[in-house]
C-alpha cells in the first residue's frame, strides 16, 4: 500500500487556477509557484515553468490541437513524448517559425506563440474536412490509379491541387536568424536515456572510473520515473532520479547532457547527438547557439531508451481525448494535469490499468475499465479501488464526438454494446521497446511473444541494451540490468573486471506486473463497411481498411505496405503505428508477426533541424576563405575579388575613370605587354621535392624527360592520370643536386600532392624522395612585361646578374632581395612577355607588393588580376582549367609529341590506346571571328559552315574566349575534330542557348608572338 502513501505526498494544488481548470495536483516536473503566459491560435493561456505546450494545453482544457494530413480529421494529443503523431503546431513566428513542432516536447516559455497548422480557415472549421467524406475514394494508393487522362492535365491541374494540400506546417520565409554549433565528445561509455536502467548503468560505469556521457532527450532526468508512482529506496522514483543525477554530476568523469537526443549510430562508435541548447527560451541568449550537433565517439554504448506505448486500433480511435494510457499518467504525475473528467481505460495489459489508479487518485472519475483480457483479480482490485465498472474480454467498438471524444461504445464479452459517456479514453496496446538505435546498423530485431513486441536480437560487442528497451518490463529489472550493463561496458574499456559482481541496486517497492495478451485491434470481421475508420497511422490517416486493400492488391511485404499506404512515413515515422500495422498485415496474410517481418528504422531517431546539421557552415562561412599574402594590400587598392576554389583572388584593379571591368582588364593587359605588371600567383601549388631519387621520380610522374635538367633551370611538365588522360601541368625547377620545386595549377594543388604521395608510397616505396607542400610558405608574384627586369633590378641584391645571358628564359635560382632577404627567382612566363616569378617567405608577400608598386612606378607598373592573366594566357594559347578538364589527352592539347617513348611514366600505356590518339579527336585550336567585334562565346559548339544545327554535325566547342586588346579582336581557344589540319578554314560557331550563329576562322592557338621572341628578350 505504498502507492497510497505516495498519493498522500501528492498534495492538491494550494489554489486551483481558474485559467487552468484541468491542473489538479502538484506535478513533479512543474513549478506551480510561477505563472507564465502563452498563446495558441491567438488565444492567451497560462502555464507554469516545466510544462510542455501539450501539458499546458491540456491544463487549459484545450483538446483539439491539429488536423490530420489526408482527411483533415480533428486531432488532439496522443502521447507525452517525441512519438507524437497528432499534436503538431507551428511554434514561434516570422523567421523563427518552426513547423511541425510536437507540442508534447515543446518546452513552454513565457510568451510562447503557437498556431495550429494544415487547416483552413480555422482549426475548428477546416474546409478540407470534406476529404473525410471522400474517403471511400481516397483509399490507399488511389492516386496511382487515376489523374492520368488527359496526359497534359497532371502538371496543369491535378498536381497543383495535390500540392496545395501537401505538407503540414509552413517553413519560415526568411533566413534562420539563429546560430548553431558543432562539438565533438569522447567517452568510454555513452548511455542513452536517464530512466532507471540508464541511471543505474551510469552509476555502475562511472564508479568504475570510466568516462561516461549520459544523454537524456528530455529536459529532466528520470524517464518514466517521472510518470509513474514507483518508490525506489523508499522515495518517489523521480526523487531518486534527481538524487542520482546529482551524484553523477559531482563525478569528474561524468558528463550529463539533457535536452540531448542521440539520433543516430554511425560506424566506429560514432554517434550523432542533437542538443536543444536554448529552445526552451524565447530566443537564444546573445552568443548562445539555438542547438548544437555533437559527434560523440564512444567505445561502448548502453541503450536505455525505454519504450513507446502503442494504441489499440478500433473504429474512430483518433478523436481528441483518446490518449495513450502511459501518457495520461505522465500528464497526471509529472504535470499535475488531468486530460479529462470522465475516463475510460482500455487496455490489453496490466500497465494500462495503472492509469485508472493514478487518474482516480487525481480526482478523475473512472467510468469504465475495458480490459481485452479475461477477468483477473488484479483488474478487479483496481476496478474496486477506483469504483469503475470492469468490462473483461471486452473492447471499444466505436466512439462518438467530433472535436473531442464524448462517448465510448463498449462491446462486452457477450457482444452486447454499452455506450458510456466520457471525455477521455486512456488506451494501452502494450509497449514497444525503443530499439531504433540498435537497428541503425541493419541488425534486425526479433519478436518476443511474452511481451508481444520486438526486442534487439543480442548485444553487440560495443552496444548493450537494458531496461524496457531490452524488453524488461519491471523497474527493478531495469535497475539490475542497467547496473550490469554499465559494469560490463566499463570493464570492456578496461575499468574494473567483468567477472566481478556488478554494484548493488536500490530496492523498488514492488515489481510491476505486465501480463500483456495482445489485442491489436477491436475490429469485427463482420463490422464491414459501416464501421468507422480505424486508424493505424494517425498522422497519415492510414486505416485498417487501407492495409487490407494494400494486401489485396499484392502489397504483402511489410516494406510494400509501408510504401503503398504511407504507413510509418509521417513525421513520427510510425513510432506508434508500425508494429500495429505489421500485426494487421500478419493477420491479413494469415501469418505470424515474425513471418511477416519488421521494418528497420533509419536515422534520425527523432527529427533533427537542418540548421543543427549545418552548424556554423552557412552564408559567408560555408567554406573557409584562403587569402593570398597580398590580399590586404589588394583590398586597399580597391581590387575586385573572385573565388578561385577556396582562394579569394584579385580579379582586376579598377582605376578612376574606368567605367567597365573590360576597360580595366584592357589597361592591365596593355600595360603588361608594353611596360610591366605584377600578379600574385601564390595560389599555384608549390611542392618541394628532395632526395637522391627526385629526378627519377619526376621522370615517372611527368610525360617528358627530366634527367638532364641542370641545376638552376626550370622545365614545363605535363602529368597524366594512369588512364592516359591529362591530369595537370606546371613547371618544375631544379634548385640543387637533389632538390626540385614543382608548381601545379591552383585547382590541382591538393590532388597533385596526393598523387605524388600515392606514387611514392604505394607504387615505388623504394625510391628515396620526399615531398612537402610549400604553397603557403612562399608568396609568389609574377612580374611580367618588357620592363620587368628593370623593376626587379631595384629589388634583387646586386650580386645576382639578371641579364638575359646569365639568367635566361627558364632559369631558376635561390637569391636574396632587399639586402639579404631569402628569395627564389624563376624566369617563367605565362603572359608570353619577358617575365619572372619572385618568391619570398609568405609573410613578406604584402611588403613585396608594396615595394613593387614603389620601385615599379617609374616604369608604369600596374598590378593585374586573374582576368588579365586569363586574357594573356589565351593570347598565348596556354591551356588552363577549361582545357585541362579531365577529358582531354596530351594529343588534344597539342602536346602529343611531349610523351617520351624512352621511359615508363604514369599513364604511358593507356595513353596509347586507339581512341586517345585518334586524329579525329577534337584538338586544340585558336579561333578569330570573321568580324573583329563579334563575340566568341565559351561553350559554343563548332559545326561546319552551312551544316544544319544538329548534333550529327557537331565537331567541337569553344573552351575559353576573351577580348584581346593586343589582337584587337575576340579570340578563343577550342577543340575541333582534326583541328590542327584545318587552320584557315571558316567554321560556324553555334550558341543555341543565346540563339546566335557566327563564323570564325580556325587559327593557331598562339595569337601573340608565336615565335616567342618576347619571353626570350
Amino acid at each position: 500500500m505504498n502507492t497510497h502513501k505516495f498519493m498522500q505526498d501528492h498534495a492538491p494544488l494550494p489554489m486551483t487556477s481558474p485559467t487552468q481548470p484541468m491542473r489538479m495536483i502538484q506535478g513533479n516536473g512543474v513549478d506551480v509557484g510561477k505563472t507564465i503566459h502563452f498563446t495558441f491560435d491567438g488565444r492567451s493561456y497560462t502555464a507554469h515553468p516545466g510544462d510542455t505546450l501539450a501539458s499546458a494545453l491540456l491544463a487549459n482544457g484545450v483538446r483539439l490541437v491539429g488536423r490530420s494530413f489526408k482527411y483533415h480529421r480533428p486531432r488532439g494529443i496522443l502521447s507525452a513524448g517525441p512519438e507524437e503523431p497528432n499534436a503538431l503546431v507551428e511554434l514561434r513566428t516570422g523567421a523563427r517559425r518552426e513547423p511541425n513542432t510536437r507540442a508534447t516536447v515543446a518546452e513552454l516559455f513565457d510568451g510562447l506563440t503557437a498556431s495550429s497548422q494544415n487547416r483552413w480557415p480555422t482549426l475548428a472549421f477546416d474546409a478540407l474536412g470534406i476529404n473525410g467524406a471522400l474517403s471511400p475514394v481516397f483509399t490507399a494508393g488511389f492516386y496511382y490509379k487515376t489523374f492520368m487522362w488527359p496526359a497534359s492535365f497532371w502538371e496543369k491541374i491535378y498536381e497543383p491541387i495535390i500540392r496545395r494540400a501537401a505538407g503540414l506546417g509552413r517553413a519560415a520565409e526568411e533566413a534562420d536568424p539563429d546560430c548553431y554549433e558543432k562539438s565533438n565528445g569522447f567517452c568510454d561509455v555513452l548511455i542513452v536515456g536517464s530512466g532507471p536502467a540508464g541511471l543505474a548503468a551510469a552509476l555502475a560505469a562511472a564508479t568504475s572510473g570510466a568516462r561516461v556521457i549520459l544523454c537524456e532527450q528530455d529536459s529532466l532526468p528520470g524517464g518514466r520515473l517521472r510518470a509513474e508512482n514507483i518508490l525506489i529506496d523508499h522515495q518517489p522514483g523521480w526523487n531518486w532520479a534527481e538524487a542520482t543525477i546529482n551524484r553523477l554530476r559531482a563525478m569528474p568523469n561524468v558528463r550529463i547532457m539533457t535536452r540531448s537526443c542521440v539520433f543516430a549510430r554511425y560506424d566506429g562508435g560514432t554517434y550523432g547527438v542533437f542538443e536543444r541548447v536554448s529552445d526552451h527560451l524565447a530566443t537564444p541568449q546573445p552568443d548562445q547557439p539555438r542547438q548544437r550537433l555533437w559527434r560523440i565517439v564512444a567505445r561502448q554504448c548502453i541503450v536505455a531508451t525505454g519504450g513507446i506505448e502503442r494504441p489499440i486500433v478500433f473504429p474512430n480511435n483518433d478523436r481528441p481525448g483518446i490518449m495513450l494510457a502511459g501518457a495520461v499518467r505522465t500528464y497526471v504525475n509529472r504535470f499535475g494535469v488531468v486530460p479529462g473528467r470522465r475516463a475510460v481505460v482500455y487496455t490489453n495489459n496490466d500497465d494500462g490499468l495503472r492509469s485508472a489508479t493514478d487518474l482516480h487518485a487525481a480526482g478523475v472519475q473512472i467510468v469504465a475499465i475495458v480490459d481485452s483480457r479475461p477477468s483477473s483479480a488484479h483488474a478487479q482490485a483496481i476496478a474496486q479501488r477506483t469504483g469503475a465498472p470492469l468490462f473483461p474480454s471486452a473492447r471499444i467498438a466505436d466512439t462518438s464526438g467530433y472535436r473531442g471524444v464524448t462517448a465510448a461504445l463498449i462491446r462486452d464479452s457477450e457482444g452486447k454494446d454499452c455506450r458510456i459517456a466520457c471525455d477521455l479514453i486512456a488506451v494501452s496496446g502494450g509497449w514497444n521497446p525503443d530499439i531504433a538505435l540498435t537497428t541503425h546498423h541493419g541488425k534486425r530485431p526479433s519478436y518476443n511473444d511474452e511481451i508481444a513486441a520486438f526486442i534487439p536480437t543480442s548485444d553487440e560487442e560495443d552496444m548493450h541494451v537494458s531496461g524496457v528497451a531490452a524488453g524488461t518490463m519491471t523497474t527493478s529489472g531495469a535497475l539490475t540490468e542497467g547496473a550490469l550493463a554499465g559494469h560490463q561496458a566499463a570493464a570492456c574499456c578496461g575499468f574494473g573486471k567483468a567477472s566481478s559482481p556488478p554494484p548493488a541496486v536500490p530496492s523498488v517497492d514492488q515489481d510491476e506486473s505486465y501480463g500483456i495478451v495482445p489485442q491489436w485491434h477491436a475490429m469485427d470481421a463482420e463490422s464491414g463497411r459501416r464501421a468507422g475508420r480505424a486508424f493505424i497511422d494517425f498522422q497519415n490517416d492510414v486505416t485498417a481498411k487501407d492495409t487490407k486493400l494494400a494486401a489485396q492488391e499484392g502489397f504483402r511485404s511489410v516494406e510494400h505496405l509501408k510504401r503503398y499506404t504511407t504507413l510509418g512515413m509521417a513525421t513520427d515515422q510510425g513510432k506508434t503505428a508500425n508494429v500495429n500495422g505489421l500485426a494487421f498485415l500478419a493477420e491479413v496474410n494469415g501469418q505470424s508477426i515474425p513471418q511477416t517481418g519488421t521494418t528497420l528504422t533509419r536515422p534520425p531517431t527523432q527529427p533533427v533541424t537542418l540548421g543543427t546539421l549545418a552548424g556554423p557552415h552557412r552564408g559567408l562561412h560555408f567554406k573557409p576563405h584562403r587569402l593570398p599574402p597580398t590580399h590586404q594590400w589588394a583590398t586597399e587598392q580597391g581590387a575586385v575579388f573572385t573565388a578561385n576554389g577556396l582562394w579569394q583572388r584579385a580579379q582586376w584593379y579598377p582605376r578612376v575613370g574606368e567605367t567597365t571591368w573590360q576597360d580595366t582588364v584592357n589597361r592591365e593587359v596593355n600595360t603588361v605587354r608594353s611596360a610591366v605588371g605584377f600578379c600574385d600567383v601564390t595560389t599555384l601549388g608549390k611542392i618541394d621535392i628532395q632526395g637522391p631519387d627526385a629526378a627519377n621520380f619526376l621522370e615517372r610522374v611527368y610525360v617528358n624527360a627530366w634527367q638532364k635538367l641542370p641545376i638552376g633551370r626550370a622545365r614545363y611538365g605535363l602529368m597524366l592520370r594512369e588512364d592516359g588522360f591529362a591530369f595537370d601541368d606546371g613547371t618544375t625547377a631544379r634548385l640543387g643536386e637533389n632538390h626540385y620545386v614543382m608548381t601545379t595549377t591552383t585547382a590541382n594543388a591538393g590532388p597533385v600532392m596526393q598523387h605524388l604521395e600515392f606514387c611514392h608510397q604505394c607504387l615505388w616505396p623504394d625510391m628515396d624522395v620526399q615531398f612537402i607542400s610549400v604553397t603557403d610558405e612562399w608568396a609568389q608574384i609574377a612580374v611580367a612585361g618588357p620592363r620587368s627586369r628593370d623593376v626587379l633590378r631595384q629589388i634583387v641584391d646586386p650580386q645576382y646578374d639578371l641579364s638575359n645571358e646569365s639568367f635566361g628564359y627558364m632559369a631558376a635560382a635561390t637569391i636574396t632581395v632587399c639586402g639579404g632577404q631569402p628569395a627564389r627567382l624563376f624566369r617563367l612566363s605565362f603572359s608570353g612577355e619577358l617575365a619572372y616569378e619572385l618568391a619570398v617567405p609568405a609573410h613578406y608577400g604584402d611588403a613585396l607588393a608594396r615595394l613593387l608598386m614603389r620601385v615599379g612606378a617609374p616604369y608604369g607598373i600596374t598590378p593585374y588580376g586573374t582576368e588579365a592573366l586569363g586574357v594573356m594566357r589565351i593570347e598565348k594559347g596556354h591551356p588552363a582549367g577549361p582545357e585541362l578538364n579531365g577529358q582531354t589527352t596530351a594529343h588534344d592539347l597539342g602536346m602529343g609529341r611531349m610523351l617520351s617513348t624512352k621511359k615508363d611514366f604514369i599513364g604511358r600505356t593507356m595513353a596509347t590506346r586507339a581512341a586517345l590518339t585518334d586524329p579525329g579527336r577534337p584538338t586544340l585550336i585558336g579561333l578569330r571571328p570573321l568580324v573583329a567585334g563579334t563575340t566568341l562565346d565559351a561553350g559554343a559548339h563548332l559545326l561546319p559552315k552551312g551544316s544544319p544545327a544538329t548534333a550529327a554535325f557537331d565537331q567541337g566547342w569553344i573552351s575559353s574566349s576573351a577580348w584581346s586588346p593586343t589582337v584587337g579582336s575576340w579570340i578563343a581557344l577550342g577543340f575541333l575534330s582534326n583541328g590542327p589540319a584545318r587552320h584557315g578554314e571558316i567554321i560556324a560557331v553555334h550558341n543555341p542557348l543565346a540563339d546566335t550563329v557566327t563564323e570564325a576562322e580556325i587559327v593557331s592557338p598562339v595569337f601573340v608572338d608565336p615565335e616567342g621572341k618576347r619571353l626570350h628578350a
Partner: protein
Amino acid sequence: MSSERYSLFSLLRESLRGHTGWKPAWRKASPQAAYDIVIVGGGGHGLATAYYLAQRYGIRRVAVLEKGWIGNGNIGRNTTIVRSNYLLPGNTPFYECSMKLWEGLEQDINYNAMVSQRGVLNLFHNDAQRNAYIRRGNAMRLHDIDAELLDASAVRAKLPFLNFDDARFPIQGGLLQRRGGTVRHDAVAWGYARAADKLGVDIIENCEVTGITITNGRVTGVETSRGPIAASKVGLACAGNSSRVAAMAGLRLPIESHVLQAFVTEGLKPFIDCVTTFGAGHFYISQSDKGGLVFGGDIDGYNSYAQRGNMPVVEDVVEGGMALMPRIGRARLLRQWGGLMDMSMDGSPIIDRTPVDQLYLNAGWCYGGFKATPASGLCFAHLLARDEPHEVATAYRLDRFGRGAVIDEKGMGAQPNLH
C-alpha cells in the same frame, strides 16, 4: 467483375463497392522450369526490361528474379529526379530517349507514377562553371533537347528564397531543363511490374540467384534459392550487386559499389518548385508532392555494400543546403538512408553482351540509374531480343575501357568514387 484497368471510372466504381474488385498489381508467380529470358534483379531496370521485352519485342516467356521484394533497391531509395541534361554524345540521346519514355509512361503502363516536369535547374557560381554549362546546354539543344540559360536575376525571380545576400559563392545563373523533374519512384517499379505481369511476365520475389549455369562457355540458366531455372538468355540488372552476381559467371567488372545517402525532411507546405542543384557544394533538392524536402549530395566515397553511410557526408550535404537555402534551418531532417551504387570506372553505364555467351549485362549506373529506368529497360530489352545494341545505347559497351572510348562526363578518370 474486377477492375483491371486503372481510371477515374474504375476508382469511382470500386469506391462504391468497398474496393473489393481490385486485383493484385502483379501475381505472386512461382518459378517455372524454363524461360526464354531470365532477368536477374527486380528493380526498376529489371522490371522495365521485362515489360519492354514483352510489350515491344513480343517475348513473354520472361521471368524477373528478385531476391527480396521488388523495388527494394535503388528504385525505392533515390531522390526521384529525371532529366536529360547530359553533355557527351554517348549519353545525351540515351537520356533523352528516357525522358521521352517518362513523358508517355502513365498512358503506356496505365499507372500514375506522377511524372512531374517541374524543371531541373543547375546553378553555377563562376565563369568556368558557366562556360561548362553553356557547352552542355548547347550540346542538349543540338540534340533537340530543351535547355535555357538563366542569369542571376532570372534565377532570383524563379527561386527568390535562395541565398543572394551573403553567399560564399554567389549564384551567377543556372542551366534550366524545364522538361526535367521528378517521378514517384516506388510507383515506377510497381507500374512496370503490373504492366509486365499483365503481358505474362513472371515476377518472382524472394528468389535469390545463387549461381549462373554455364555449359560450354554458354549460359543455360541460373541456380536460385527456389531451385534451378533454365533460360536461353540471362540478363543481369543488379545495380550495386552487379559485381557479386557477375562473379558467379567468373567475370570481373569495371565497377565499384559505393553508398549514396539521401534525405527527406518533415512535410512542409510546398515552396520549392523545381529541382535545384547547388554548384558550389554537394547538394541537390526537390520538394515532393507530400511536402517533404528530398535532397542528397555526394557519395560517401568508399566501397560499401552496407546501404548506409556516415556522418561527414550528412553534414557536408546539409551545409550545402543551408548555404543555398538559409530559410530551411528550422525544417527537420526526418529520415536518411543509403543506396548501393554501381559506380563504373568512367561514370557511365554498360548495356552489353558479356564475354560469356548468352549472358548480358546492364550495370554501372552510378547514382544516375533512376532517370535512366525506361531507356535502360528498352535498350536492354532490345539487346536481349536482337543481340545488338539499341541505337541510343551504342556507346555503352563493355570493351570501351580497353579501347579508351570512355564516357567521362565529370572528367575524373578511372576512379569511381570521384564520379
